[in-house]
């Protein structure tokens, strides 16, 4: 049954739409009368946190968004960077957290679908996808079900659509028990002079609806994403959309053909708040009004009301402004691909957003105010409480180094993710030069195959929790470092800020400080933010997630043949450690502390950004000069884990000495000092490289040599690489098969 448009707007109805009383007052002021139900729905869709960024906007403005290679920063569907040869890389990351918790397969699948549309709506063919996933404690009764559903959903959509899913993150922590995170990233490739935007131009031009039909799915999805969860979250299942990757693949091909035909003036995908957001965006950006006739909207369900059509989040749909003289050609393309093509409205010079349904006008709103006049809050915040320092003497050494190392590489957060990425087609398109499992994935660039693009995603939420500023810096630095490891020049990032309820000052304080940290790192590393997404209210029953500002970065390899991996290439090569200063063996917030000693305390390691840059540029310089045969950065788990990962990737061992002056052995092995890389080179040039590093005022030392079947740490342990591999590969598949006692 259809919902009438002229029902009484009660305070309860306003509250159900997620609008605060003062926000409703503002609506009354703006339009000078009581809104219709459809209008209330439109305001609710435009003014929720997800669409309006009302709590975060003030702070997002402080992020650096420009740079030599930035073509378009935040504000469009995705960020655009110049990668030379007349080509552009277009990318963004976006969350689909709440839907994925409620219905993991479809939630994750439509998260992937949404981010792919963001990229191809700008004229780019998607060439890579990644996913940063965070789940609750492995022993929580829902975790296995969620992992299984989310991974299947990510794969189900991306595999069928035909984009290689090449990387991401998977972590577990009890703080995600009631609110998992699914952050989907997509990267596309386009000609730099053929980027399509959402800004409508020209009056009286047809507004065309493209793609799949509209149904009742996903109504109020964006509003759901702007609320905390309680125990009744399961009841919100109807607000989750259903994905159809087949239609999306057809939509991609049809849109790219359409763009090549010259018929597109402006185009915008229908994402959150569907028809509402896309139409308002196009009109407001172009300073034009839009009239929509809902009787023309292709529907797959009967008797849909205007309210439902305007708020549906049915997937695989686009809206565009068409050059009228090319209507027939445009329509033919969509007919060929079996997709809907319907002229549903026109641009006007009224600056009004008017909606007609069954012969009646059901909405008439000022189009610019819907976006520009959205509330913006300077929410109160308190500076986060920092953790007291943790000395080496406060952290006992392990009883047995080999046991500790095996425990770490077999732990949920460090074990192999092969079980996950083998469910993703990471090879399709034939351009995957570095598959998942390394520091960053690398894609060959079609049209300029001497080049490569590197992508990776990182954040260490336990660091952000302990010190949001340092944690924010570290997330950016880690991405920059991982891109450097494969030989890429880091170019830009997209950020996906996942936090709790911003109306709580301590959460807001975490958000503010993390953004400040991200901004600081971006400035010093010249690594601007070109797109992003904020996901707040990630709480269930008042417990917030760990603050998780996920960062995904893109780097360029001007010469793909220089690409490095973490594998040892031959026996007898020298293994070097390089950093700005000698290691300090920082154990606060380390995985050693958490996984071996069961403690999560202390401050996170400090990131010295100027040093970070010096060291990274030095390492990249050596890669470009063909001096290095393998590179891997030191991160989670410390230097011992870094070396273990290299040995496992190679299937061969190494003999190293990890004794550093003034720090105990367990701090050398498991300390998570920032800004260090392990480099492998021919033994004959190791002295020369070390001398060069010293000349650049950097710390560098020879740790040992590759070869053998064991990772031998002088004076403390010799562990067979085969045993490490077995332990590393064991946990995730066994856990997912339900065969692990936890």
């Amino acid at each position, binding site marked *: 049954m259809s919902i009438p448009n002229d029902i009484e707007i009660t305070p309860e109805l306003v509250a159900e739409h997620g609008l605060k009383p003062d926000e409703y007052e503002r609506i009354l002021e703006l339009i000078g009368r009581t809104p219709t139900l459809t209008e209330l729905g439109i305001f609710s869709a435009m003014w929720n946190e997800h669409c309006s960024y009302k709590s975060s906007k003030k702070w997002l403005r402080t992020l650096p968004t420009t740079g030599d290679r930035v073509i378009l920063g935040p504000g469009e569907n995705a960020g655009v960077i110049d990668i030379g040869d007349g080509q552009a890389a277009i990318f963004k990351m976006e969350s689909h957290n709440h839907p994925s918790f409620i219905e993991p397969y479809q939630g994750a699948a439509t998260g992937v679908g949404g981010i792919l549309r963001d990229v191809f709506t700008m004229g780019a063919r998607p060439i890579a996808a990644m996913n940063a996933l965070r789940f609750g404690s492995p022993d929580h009764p829902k975790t296995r079900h969620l992992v299984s559903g989310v991974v*299947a959903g990510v*794969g*189900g959509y991306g*595999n*069928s*659509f*035909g984009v290689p899913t090449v990387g991401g993150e998977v972590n577990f922590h009890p703080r995600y028990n009631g609110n998992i995170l699914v952050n989907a990233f997509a990267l596309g490739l386009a000609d730099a002079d053929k980027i399509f935007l959402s800004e409508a131009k020209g009056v009286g031009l047809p507004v065309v609806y493209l793609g799949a039909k509209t149904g009742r799915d996903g109504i109020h999805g964006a509003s759901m994403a702007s609320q905390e969860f309680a125990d009744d979250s399961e009841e919100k299942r109807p607000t989750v959309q259903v994905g*159809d*990757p*087949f*239609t999306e*693949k*057809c939509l991609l091909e049809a849109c790219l053909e359409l763009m090549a035909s010259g018929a597109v003036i402006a185009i915008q995908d229908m994402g959150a708040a569907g028809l509402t957001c896309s139409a308002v965006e196009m009109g407001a950006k172009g300073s034009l009004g839009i009239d929509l006739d809902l009787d023309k909207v292709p529907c797959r369900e009967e008797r849909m009301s205007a309210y439902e059509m305007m708020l549906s989040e049915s997937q695989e749909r686009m809206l565009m402004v068409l050059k009228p003289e090319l209507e027939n050609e445009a329509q033919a393309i969509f007919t060929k*691909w*079996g997709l809907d093509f319907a002229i549903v409205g026109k641009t006007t010079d009224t600056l009004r957003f008017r909606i007609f349904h069954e012969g009646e006008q059901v909405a008439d709103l000022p189009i610019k105010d819907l976006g520009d006049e959205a509330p913006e809050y300077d929410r109160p915040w308190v500076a986060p409480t920092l953790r007291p320092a943790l000395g080496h003497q406060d952290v006992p050494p392990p009883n047995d180094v080999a046991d500790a190392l095996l425990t770490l590489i077999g732990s949920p957060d460090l074990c192999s993710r092969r079980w996950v*990425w*083998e*469910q*993703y*087609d*990471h*090879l*399709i*398109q*034939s*351009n*995957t*030069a570095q*598959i998942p499992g390394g520091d960053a994935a690398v894609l*060959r660039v079609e049209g300029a195959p001497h080049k490569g693009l590197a992508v990776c995603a990182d954040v260490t939420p336990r660091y952000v929790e302990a010190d949001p500023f340092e944690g924010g810096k570290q997330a950016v630095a880690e991405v920059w470092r991982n891109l450097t490891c494969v030989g890429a020049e880091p170019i830009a990032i997209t950020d996906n800020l996942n936090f709790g309820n911003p109306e709580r000052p301590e959460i807001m304080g975490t958000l503010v400080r993390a953004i400040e940290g991200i901004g600081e790192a971006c400035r010093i590393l010249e690594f601007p933010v070109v797109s992003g997404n904020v996901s707040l209210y990630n709480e269930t029953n008042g417990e917030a997630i760990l603050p998780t500002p996920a960062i995904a970065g893109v780097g360029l390899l001007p010469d*793909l043949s220089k690409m490095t991996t973490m594998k040892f290439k031959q026996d007898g090569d020298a293994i070097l450690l390089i950093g700005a200063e000698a290691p300090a063996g920082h154990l606060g917030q380390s995985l050693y502390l958490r996984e071996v000693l069961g403690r999560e305390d202390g401050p996170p390691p400090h990131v010295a950004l100027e040093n970070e840059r010096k060291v990274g540029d030095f390492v990249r310089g050596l890669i470009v000069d063909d001096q290095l045969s393998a590179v891997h950065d030191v991160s989670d788990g410390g230097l011992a884990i870094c070396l273990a990962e290299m040995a496992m990737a190679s299937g061969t061992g190494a003999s190293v000495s990890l004794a550093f002056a003034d720090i105990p052995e367990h701090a050398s092995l498991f300390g998570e000092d920032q800004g260090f890389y392990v480099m492998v080179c021919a033994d004959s040039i190791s002295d020369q490289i070390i001398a060069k590093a010293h000349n650049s005022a950097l710390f560098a030392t020879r740790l040992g040599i590759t070869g053998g079947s064991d990772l031998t740490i002088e004076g403390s342990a010799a562990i067979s690489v085969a045993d490490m591999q077995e332990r590393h590969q064991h946990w995730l598949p066994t856990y997912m098969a339900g065969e692990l006692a936890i």
Partner: protein
Amino acid sequence: MKSAVVLFPGINRQRDMMMALEAGTGIVPLSIWHTETELPDVDLIVIPGGFSYGDYLRCGAIAGRSPVMAEIIRAAKRGVKVLGVCNGFQILVETELLPGALMRNAHLKFVCREVRLRIENNTTFFTSSLNKGDVVSCPVAHGDGNYFASDDKLKQLEDEGRVVFRYVEGTNPNGAVNDIAGVVNRQGNVIGLMPHPENMIEAMHGRTDCWPLFEGLAAA
């Protein structure tokens, strides 16, 4: 050798296949849109991987019954060479140009990984530049590659040497009976296989093991 690639909506490895065919044969392959009912004059028709029509019914079932396939069946009967990879193999099985069925992977999950394939029959147009018994690395990427045939059909396939590719023991990724990865029809002109040799032909793919398959097409 002139080749053409069939494009059903939802097919998504056509670009990979076309690059490999062009590199191997030296001639840019043509494409055949799924609504066409007249086939171009080519020596080889390739049905690439993907999810034709979304594979929302049984994999390959809808494509197998499309008008263009009726033409391809006729062409195959005339002796035109036909190669189906992944979804293409599933479609060929649906048309009964090839025997057997491709079921859901035994572990019920999509799998993308490198496997080892043994060349069991090197007398086909696709394997003639390799030796019988050669082992090559090759990736798979599918959710429904679990080959099955009835005992008598299986015996026939084995007896007639029509298993072309077999997963090396321990690398069968989907539970396929007799480790079968690819088969040929009795006339020898229709081949289907689940793995993706087109993704392992150049140094950048990590190995070039499958390059001889495409290189051999030029002479076939």
